[in-house]
């Protein structure tokens, strides 16, 4: 296959990453360090997610890649083409047909089912990093469950904006133990993490950390008693498919201030349009 | 009245030596073999020339100076207490509840209002702050401190005004033993009379007092007994290098 091993990475590397993944699944939300490899793309383009995908991909898997919900953006197209070439696997844009979905910053609107695997691309895996620059210290804080500072950030949000203004990478507590960064998905997607049927894997290439949320795991978004966690809502449905349940992107349509709101999940939007029609 | 006859304080063979390490270990014996007994309801006045060690004695009994030799026993119904052997931490409760002290000079946190300076001994015992304020204001009024000064810090007051704040602070606690170091020094005749009344009222309550009063008139009116300190209690011949080296704690 063009002189590459199956799925680009050598077998030893894949074994190493799989061992890391096993540990991550065993300790939900815990960040496992791994020996990250150079990938043929820069950091920040999904190298962490790609190494995880490469390590778990089998010949019979069907791969879907999305970027901010869309199948047709550069990042998604490139990564999909990459795995078609180095692993020769079947690809799809339909969430229901995929066995592995690599994603940048969204979870599909179509509910995931048992047997599917989500692979998240993560820029900064450490939710405590904003307040504590030292890695040794944050690891200790996780070990001792010193999580008071996470609420300092939320408090500050309410003090400044009157509500919790964090809208993406909204911190969660996994299985009642580890505070975890769900990657920069909108907080709209946070409830989908809770008791999800699919296995969810997170890979950070630059930081060389991976972590997991196994199927059917409790995932709570941090909040205050008098300011409970809430997701975004829109006043109008999707301008294309009419869905009132999906996460909408604002699209500028002309130079005169024209704009419309459409589903960020292109696959869901297309299916929903077909159903309505 | 039987209990009244029993002394509250019994001092025996008290002596004080200062060792000045900065002066090559110069040793100053400022007090030798002093003894006294003080009963509840009694006011004894220390007399003697200036520098004879009157204030030193009060400071030794208050714990500010260490007792070099001898004993100073406080009598309690459930046993005696020798001040010479008291560990430092024990003085906290003793000063709060038993021994009060009116010094010559007021020493307190800058910028604290006079009335709060006076309230503090009561607050330390957990007295409610409204009650403490009431008592403090009562005393300040009785000592003729103008009401406009009560909420001002005493740092800027005249000597006599500071002295009255100090007296109020000393008398408010109702300690069973009061040490008075020239409380009337900078007062006018009217206020001296008030202090004499306060002392007589305290005596009637059974408070034992040991005081220094330079004003003969006041001394006459408050003293039940005079305690003359004279030069044989002092050995002015300083011994150089007698106690060289480091003093133990």
């Amino acid at each position, binding site marked *: 296959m063009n002189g590459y091993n199956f799925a680009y990475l050598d077998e030893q590397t894949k074994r190493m990453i799989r061992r890391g993944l096993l540990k991550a699944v065993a300790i939900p939300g815990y960040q496992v360090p791994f020996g990250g490899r150079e990938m043929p793309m820069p950091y920040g383009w999904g190298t962490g997610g790609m190494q995880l995908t490469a390590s778990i991909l089998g010949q019979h898997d069907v791969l879907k890649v999305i970027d901010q919900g869309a199948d047709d953006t550069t990042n998604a197209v490139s990564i999909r083409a990459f795995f078609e070439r180095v692993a020769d696997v079947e690809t799809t844009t339909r969430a229901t047909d995929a066995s592995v979905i690599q994603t940048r910053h969204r979870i599909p609107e179509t509910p995931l089912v048992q047997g599917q695997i989500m692979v998240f691309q993560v820029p900064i895996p450490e939710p405590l990093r904003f307040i504590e620059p030292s890695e040794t210290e944050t690891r200790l804080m996780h070990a*001792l469950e010193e999580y008071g500072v996470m*609420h300092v950030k939320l408090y*500050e949000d309410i003090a400044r904006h009157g509500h919790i203004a964090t809208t993406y990478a909204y911190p969660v507590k996994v299985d009642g133990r580890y505070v975890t960064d769900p990657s920069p998905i909108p907080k709209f997607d946070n409830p989908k993490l809770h008791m999800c049927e699919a296995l969810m894997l997170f890979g950070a290439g630059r930081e060389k950390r991976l972590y997991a949320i196994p199927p059917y795991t409790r995932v709570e978004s941090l909040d205050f008693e008098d300011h409970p966690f809430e997701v975004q809502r829109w006043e109008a449905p999707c301008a294309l498919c009419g869905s009132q349940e999906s996460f909408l992107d604002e699209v500028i349509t002309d130079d005169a201030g024209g704009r419309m709101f459409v589903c960020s999940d292109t696959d869901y939007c297309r299916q929903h349009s077909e159903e309505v029609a | 009245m039987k209990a009244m006859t029993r002394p509250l304080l019994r001092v025996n063979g008290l002596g004080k030596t200062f060792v000045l390490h900065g002066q090559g270990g110069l040793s100053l014996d400022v007090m030798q073999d002093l003894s006294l007994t003080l009963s509840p309801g009694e006011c004894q006045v220390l007399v003697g020339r200036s520098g004879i060690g009157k204030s030193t004695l009060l400071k030794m009994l208050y714990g*500010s100076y260490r007792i070099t030799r001898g004993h100073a026993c406080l009598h309690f*119904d459930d046993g005696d207490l020798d001040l010479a052997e008291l560990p*430092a931490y024990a003085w906290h409760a003793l000063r709060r509840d038993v021994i009060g002290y009116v010094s010559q000079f007021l020493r307190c946190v800058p910028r604290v209002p006079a009335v709060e300076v006076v309230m503090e001994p009561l*607050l330390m015992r957990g007295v409610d702050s409204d009650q403490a304020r009431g008592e403090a204001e009562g005393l300040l009024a009785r000592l003729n401190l103008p009401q406009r000064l009560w909420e001002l810090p005493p740092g800027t007051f005249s000597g006599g005004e500071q002295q009255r704040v100090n007296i109020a602070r000393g008398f408010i606690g109702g300690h069973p033993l009061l040490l008075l170091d020239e409380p009337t020094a900078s007062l006018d005749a009217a206020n001296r009379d008030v202090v004499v009344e306060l002392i007589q009222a305290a005596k009637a309550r059974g408070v034992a007092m040991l005081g220094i009063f330079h004003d003969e008139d006041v001394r006459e009116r408050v003293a039940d007994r005079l305690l003359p300190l004279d030069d044989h209690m002092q050995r002015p011949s300083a011994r150089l290098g007698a106690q060289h080296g480091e003093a133990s*704690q």
Partner: protein
Amino acid sequence: MKHPQLEPPTLLEARDVSRLYGPDKGCQEIDLALYRGEVLGIVGESGSGKSTLLRLLSGLERPDGGQVIYHAHDATLDLYAIGEARRRALLRMEWGLVHQNPRDGLRLGVSAGANIGERLMALGQRHYGQLRAAGQDWMARVELDAERIDDAPNTFSGGMQQRLQIARTLVTRPQLVFMDEPTGGLDVSVQARLLDMLRTLVRELGLSVILVTHDLAVARLLAHRLVVMRRGRIVEAGLTDQILDDPQHAYSQLLVSSVLTP
């Protein structure tokens, strides 16, 4: 008349504690006890080992030898024999540390209210309204304008920052507070107000305090007892006014006689 209760319960003890960085640098053979409700001052010149001793006593630095014993309400703990988790929890929940420079003790990136609320949140307080009320209450107690609860500490003066740090530390009503030169970097006029405030808080909350200071005037006003340190050792210990008015050790005498008293 009965004996007053003269022996208060011991809260913290150092037993033969040593930590040396070099000859006479650090602390040697330190024995001391802090009693409940008492302010114990540690005085001495720069480099005498005061701050090292504070770090050893407050769980921040493991001694080379000796023990630090904390008498909690329900147990007696050997500070460096218990696990790090327990020790850090102790520091966070039952103890407090006030730094000389308030910027070391504050989170400068978040508001005054978040600073005060942090320890409460660490203890599990999850009600924003109550956190805010506590923040306003404590700002008033340390004489800060409660209206400024959402302002960043950077917009406060040095004295106000120090009061904010104190509020942040005391909000959880700690049993034991360590203070390292709390009035150190402040103007004289600001110092006086802070000293008065500290005295009041110590009395009202029944705090036990270990206070490191090189300023004997501060020690006189705040501390009940003093220990004098020199070259890593305690050379004298006693009542504050006794140490300052009748010092016994040659070094204490030198220290006291070197002070300018207005």
